[in-house]
């Protein structure tokens, strides 16, 4: 990478390494992205201990629409990094599979796409009104069974709505 600063994105994409180069670039990009997310996620989660109300405020703000797209991007990054990382480990410790390395890349892509399909539907369909939020019904049913469960106690209004229904 001595010439890193002189190598354009187009050069990297059209490099003869093809599948190997593309996954190498995406592995880096997703890895750095996940690290950035982790720093935010870890500090934000630590507030649950010292400032629980702040933590609940964070969770509420994540329920607004734009965060869904960001969260889907984070999920894709984690998923790709995990599957591609598994491929790298397999190739490193069983070098003879390198003879099939291009096929392994396409297998990686297939696994990622297959996992993305249902998750994308689950996360985005409610935003476009194509489906209910997947957790709402189950949350309600669970709170009917155990109204004193922690999340039903009305920290952000869910508990009080449930309590009203129960009293009817």
């Amino acid at each position: 990478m001595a010439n890193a600063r002189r190598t354009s994105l187009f050069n990297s994409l059209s490099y003869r390494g093809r599948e190997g180069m593309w996954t190498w670039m995406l592995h880096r990009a997703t890895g750095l992205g996940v690290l950035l997310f982790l720093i935010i996620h870890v500090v934000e989660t630590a507030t649950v201990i010292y400032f629980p109300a702040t933590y609940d405020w964070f969770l509420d703000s994540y329920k607004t629409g734009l965060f869904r797209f960001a969260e889907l991007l984070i999920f894709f990054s984690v998923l790709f990094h995990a599957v591609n990382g598994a491929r790298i480990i397999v190739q490193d410790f069983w070098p003879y599979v390198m003879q099939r390395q291009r096929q392994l890349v396409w297998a990686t892509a297939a696994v990622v796409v297959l996992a993305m399909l249902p998750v994308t539907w689950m996360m985005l369909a409610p935003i476009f009104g194509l489906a209910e939020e997947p957790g709402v019904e189950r949350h309600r049913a669970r709170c009917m069974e155990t109204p004193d469960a922690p999340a039903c106690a009305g920290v952000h209004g869910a508990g009080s709505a449930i309590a009203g229904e129960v009293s009817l």
Partner: protein
Amino acid sequence: MSAPAQVVERGVARGGGGYLRPRGKRSNFEVLSWFFMRISGLLLIFLALYHLVWWNLVIGVEHLDSRVVIERWNNPFWRLFNVALVVFAMLHGLNGARYSIEDYVRRPGWQLAVKSVVYTVVLGAMAVAVFALLTFDPATVIGR
């Protein structure tokens, strides 16, 4: 992504490609870091996958709030699970960031500056998380 025997510390660029091994004492830090990335990566696939399935599918985001988390962390096992998750994830991420910084930030002064900032932020976040997980008393938080 190369086999351990081929990992070469970056030294002087050699005509015809590659790098000469740097002079001075030889360290096997890079080989250890190569192994660490494979082992922590393999562990993280399982730890992070379980973490995602548990909080997003089993609990579900609708059902999640501060009390659910605190209740979960009443159990020392799940606190240690989270300590392991955050330590492996942060060290794996930090070493990955180090690879990128060494590749793209070539001037020694700038490299030191960027590394200092990134190491401080990542290790600081990790320290906050581990300290919080290991020292808090769930009983006092639930009462709030």
